[in-house]
């Protein structure tokens, strides 16, 4: 069992590294939000899939359904909204009808007006503001399964060419993805937790795996905070990669330094 390398008076034993990492993370986030202008984010292949799906729907003259998740403002919702904005612009550009189911939880109530604003702006920026139809952003319900029922109903009635479901979806995701498939739509989804990702990887034509969603959102968005987040997350992934490699090497050479350091 790993034991702390050292203790600092006043700091509870075993919690120093946790505190330090939190502080480093917070400092990095605020640094990159201020000075991270040049952060470049890799374009994830999922974006091409989205563009292709919208293009195909436009060709077929079918609508697209795009949802940004059913939670309140969370990390995934913000990514979902960035993608929604992109899809809305593509839809405006190609003259395709866009339907955005909203609601799904009580917390989602405060997200809805923001989503409306985003879609409206997208049409405005493409010079197609007359085509914006607020009725295409129906509020389905504040309850998860009533929301799903409504969502499924919309798909069954409108027979969309593409369904793009991003943001946080839970056990409802399979319900939506399966119905989308049954209606013959190109299904693009994102999964935020592992069991869902695995199931959606089977049920969808294309899936944005885990953080790919937020990376795609940050790539599309002008928001510095989102880009900074991706940068800091990458740094922490590099850090964990380094700790694992160095830890494995040193541990197998007989030193428990890394294990003990992490328990400090």
């Amino acid at each position, binding site marked *: 069992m790993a034991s702390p390398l050292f203790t600092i008076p006043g700091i509870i034993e075993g919690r120093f590294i946790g505190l330090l990492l939190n502080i480093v993370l917070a400092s990095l986030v605020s640094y990159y939000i201020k000075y991270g202008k040049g952060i470049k984010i*890799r374009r*994830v292949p999922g974006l091409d899939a989205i563009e292709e799906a919208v293009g195909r729907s436009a060709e077929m003259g079918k609508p697209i359904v795009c949802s940004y998740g059913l939670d309140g403002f969370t990390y995934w919702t913000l990514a979902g909204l960035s993608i929604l904005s992109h899809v809305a612009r593509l839809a405006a550009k190609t003259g395709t009808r866009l339907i955005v189911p909203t609601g799904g939880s009580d917390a989602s109530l405060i997200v809805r007006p923001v989503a409306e604003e985003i879609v409206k702006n997208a049409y405005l920026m493409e010079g197609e503001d007359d085509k914006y139809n607020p009725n295409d952003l129906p509020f389905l319900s504040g309850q998860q399964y009533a929301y799903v029922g409504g969502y499924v109903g919309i798909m069954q009635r409108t027979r969309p060419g593409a369904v793009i479901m991003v943001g946080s979806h839970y056990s409802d995701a399979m319900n939506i993805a399966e119905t989308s498939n049954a209606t013959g739509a190109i299904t693009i989804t994102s999964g935020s937790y592992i*069991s869902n990702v*695995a199931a959606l990887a089977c049920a969808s034509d294309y899936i944005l795996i885990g953080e790919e969603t937020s990376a795609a959102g940050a790539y599309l968005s002008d928001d510095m905070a989102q880009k900074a987040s991706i940068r800091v997350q990458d740094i922490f992934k*590099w850090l964990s990669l380094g700790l694992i490699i160095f830890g494995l090497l040193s541990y197998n050479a007989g030193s428990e330094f890394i294990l003990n350091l992490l328990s400090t």
Partner: protein
Amino acid sequence: MTTLIEYSIVAVGSFLAFCMFSTLYGKGNPLYSLAEESYLGFGTGLSIVMNVTYIWKTGILNIMAGDWVLIFAVVLGIMILFRVNSTYSYISRIPIAIVLGAQFGLSLRTIIFSGFIQQIQSVIQPLFSGGTQMLIYNWTIALCVLFMLTFFFYTTEFEGLLKTSSTFGEYLLYASFGAIFAQTFMGRLGLFIGFMQSYTVPSWEKPFLVGSLLLVFGIVYAMDKAGILEKFTPED
């Protein structure tokens, strides 16, 4: 001795359950709406009862027992209700700020340990000593985590070693998805079987189960054939 109440619970329960299942028919129908609205209504009522009980027991009773500080909780709780009023909704922002601050405090102070530090520690395992099975496991986990992690770098261009590693990582991810999907299926199947079991044990319940199944799907099928399914289904 089975009482009338028990019979009624099983009869109504199995009927409503199959009303819910009728969504599998692929079209909206009034029986599904009946089940859905029943669950929504009674479920919401239940939530209110339980949450009010929580406020009563944890808040009010403790205040009456002399824990005066908790009066703040009640005051702040009432302030949060102003959210529904557009003129005074700003009042609700104070309790929201307090709750959010506390929530982030609770989550940030713990997940760094359980979700980051300890996860890294758990990968650091012996790679050269121990039983064969353990070595195979340790090597596989270590390599999988490393390759999969590289698939998730976004601010670095994929070139050379990193590109190979991330491609490999993606393949490993898909291999793992198969295993995880199977476990997820097991779970969903278990939920379904467990439910069905609650209507087959004791065995006097069986006719209710089969009867409800036939009744509900029969009604839905007949309504569909008669073309009146949509007429009685509520709008979204």
